[in-house]
């Protein structure tokens, strides 16, 4: 349904009704932002990159092939844009660990009980932070963006067997990290 609806929106945009593009932005903004954020681990950069990606997607919408999903095509743009930015950042010797601490530095010292939804979110984010870059990317694309292993492979260039290993390792790390952080409280989360 969404795929068909996406195609209708795209047709309208290409016919000149650009305001309708807001429907696609609204539909995918959170998924797109989560994906970029999980790669770059910085909210401001992620927001800027996702905005750029949506504008890029709009600019090259005419080249979008109807035989694939718009979401997959958009995620590809986001991954490429974000990874390029990430590489530039690494070249500029920015300390990513410090950036990660910026958001979560105080979390570990908080008491581990009476979790609100926001607190649960913080701990899960912290667990996600403990993953390697490729693990975060694969876990996000596979579980949140709901791409298949084959699609993740096409999008990232990581081999299928490696993706499976990364997913397995990522799941394991997330649970271990949460277990260490939350102990008995973890079972309330799921």
């Amino acid at each position: 349904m969404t795929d068909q609806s996406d195609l209708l929106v795209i047709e309208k945009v290409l016919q000149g009704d650009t305001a309708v593009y807001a429907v696609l932005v609204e539909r995918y903004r959170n998924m797109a932002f989560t994906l970029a954020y999980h790669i770059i681990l910085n909210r401001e950069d992620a927001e800027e990159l996702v905005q750029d990606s949506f504008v890029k997607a709009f600019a090259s919408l005419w080249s979008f092939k109807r035989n694939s999903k718009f979401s997959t095509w958009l995620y590809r743009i986001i991954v490429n844009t974000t990874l390029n930015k990430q590489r530039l950042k690494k070249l500029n010797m920015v300390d990513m660990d410090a950036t990660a601490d910026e958001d979560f530095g105080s979390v570990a010292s908080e008491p581990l009980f009476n979790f609100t939804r926001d607190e649960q979110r913080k701990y899960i984010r912290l667990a996600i932070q403990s993953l390697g870059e490729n693990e975060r990317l694969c876990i996000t694309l596979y579980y949140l963006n709901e791409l298949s292993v084959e699609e993740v492979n096409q999008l990232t260039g990581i081999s299928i067997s490696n993706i499976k290993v990364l997913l397995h390792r990522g799941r394991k790390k997330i649970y271990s990290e949460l277990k260490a952080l939350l102990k008995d409280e973890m079972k309330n989360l799921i």
Partner: protein
Amino acid sequence: MIMYSDDKIKKLLQVAMEETPPGFTSNVMNRVEAMKYSAASQPLVSKKVKVAFLVTFLLLVTIIVVIAALTMKDSITITLPKLSGRDFYSFSLSIVGFWILVGLNRLLTNPFTNQPSM
């Protein structure tokens, strides 16, 4: 023992789903509106059409040249001036000189000869 089930991990990740800051969509749409006349539409001529135009143009030029060559053969007579041996000598010398210069130029700009010594 913790089971690493796909559903559970999915639920966990959904809890931590990030949300864009307020005004995100309007910011994107402002940028989109700013560029809508320049980029959103498909280019007037696609690559395939461009190639087709080029091939057609070259074909037409070739046909015209061939037809012209066949039909104008008798009507145009070109009278060449008689060249003396000296003229031929200077002509050949200029061609040889030209190619020597081209050869020297290529030799000097050859990337293999321009590599810095280790």
